[in-house]
């Protein structure tokens, strides 16, 4: 069962891994569906959900709500799974989602040194750099160097906390609300919230950078 869209958009790539992997994955899909284990239409839906519904826009809504609603922020820090569930952004939030709060004295950063664990229901699939050897190796012993790679400089006396996601707990950083944004709507605040600021490798956009 050749799937036409597999031939799409790869023509401009010439990497040998690409054609090899394309063939390998196509053979796996064909054999596993002929054996009756999977339905390719289900794969289509999974891919579509990852490309359209699941992404950092969900996390941005969570952060914006926490910035504008102190009761929600308190609930989020107490039990992020429960608090995010109440927003109805996604059908079901995974268990043991934990929000960690940045303050003027403390900066949090998330990593998975062993593989690629990531709070994908609120942030989407992790970017390539998050899964890469440079990030996974250096986040735990050179976070200021990693932050410099992202163009982020923290004050020398800011405490840094790295959360290594070594179990099925998942972390999202609650960044500090940018100055000059008090009273903004949640929708407008959400435009300041980048994916990277919820991982801890970035900071939110400034008020004058709002969309």
């Amino acid at each position, binding site marked *: 069962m050749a*799937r036409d*869209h*597999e*031939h799409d*958009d790869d023509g401009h790539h010439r990497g040998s*891994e690409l054609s090899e*992997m*394309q063939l*390998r*994955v*196509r*053979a*796996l*899909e*064909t*054999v*596993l569906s*002929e*054996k*009756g*284990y*999977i*339905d390719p239409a289900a*794969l289509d839906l*999974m*891919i579509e959900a*990852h*490309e359209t519904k699941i992404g950092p826009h969900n996390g941005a809504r969570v952060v914006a709500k926490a910035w504008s609603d102190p009761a929600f922020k308190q609930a989020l820090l107490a039990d992020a799974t429960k608090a995010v569930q109440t927003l109805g952004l*996604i*059908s079901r939030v*995974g*268990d043991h989602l934990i929000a960690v709060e940045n303050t003027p004295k403390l900066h949090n950063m998330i990593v998975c*040194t*062993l593989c*690629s664990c990531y709070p*994908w*229901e609120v942030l*989407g699939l992790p*970017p*390539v750099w998050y*899964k*890469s*050897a*440079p990030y*996974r190796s*250096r*986040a*735990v*012993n050179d976070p*200021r160097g990693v932050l410099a*790679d*992202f163009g982020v400089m923290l004050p020398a006396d800011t405490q*840094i906390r*790295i959360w*290594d*996601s070594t*179990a*099925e*707990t998942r972390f999202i950083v609650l960044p500090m609300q940018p100055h000059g944004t008090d009273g903004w709507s949640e929708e407008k605040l959400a435009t300041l919230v980048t994916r990277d600021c919820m991982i801890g*490798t970035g900071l939110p956009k400034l008020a004058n950078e709002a969309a």
Partner: protein
Amino acid sequence: MDGIHDMGGMHGFGKVEPEKNEPVFHAAWEGRCLALNRAMGAIGAWTIDEGRAGIEELPPDVYLASSYYGKWALRLQNMVIARGFAGADELAAGHALREAKPLPRKLTTADVPRTLTRGSFGRPALAPARFAVGDRVRTKNIHPKTHTRLPRYARGHVGVVEAIRGCHVFPDSTAVGGGENPQWLYTVVFDARELFGEAADPTLKISIEAFEPYLESPQP
């Protein structure tokens, strides 16, 4: 397993290179590969920890030379062959040549929402937690040849229990087909200088999520 996947604290991998406006998938096969892997997990072909072990068991040179979804494709191929869901000859032919080995369920479109939520790994406690918040603990100096979630950089070091996260499926057990064997899970926080020596950043703390069997009371 003391494999190449256990990268925390290693040197020499260079700068982190974020990609501007990165797409969710860089080629169509990556999406198919992700969905296939998730699908086989969702129908019970293997547990998440067996799947992680499947990545870790790739040879180190292959691990480092392969893209992320390239590793997933190799893992999927190795595991469907090793567990008898498909033969190497069938994958080479690109078609099924034999009847399927039975699995409890097939992944259909109705199952998709379930695959979009992370699994549930909390379990009822079988015994009281051995450690309390604020306790000093030492991670054991263990080097199992099979899957573990205690990273090398954090073995044999003293930290403090910051939170108790409940009782969870124990990856070291499920990864080798040993059942869920639920264990208490703790957030244990270390000073960077405890882990990486006196020259480490004095403003830095690192936490791991540590299962109780990884921990012992430090010597007084």
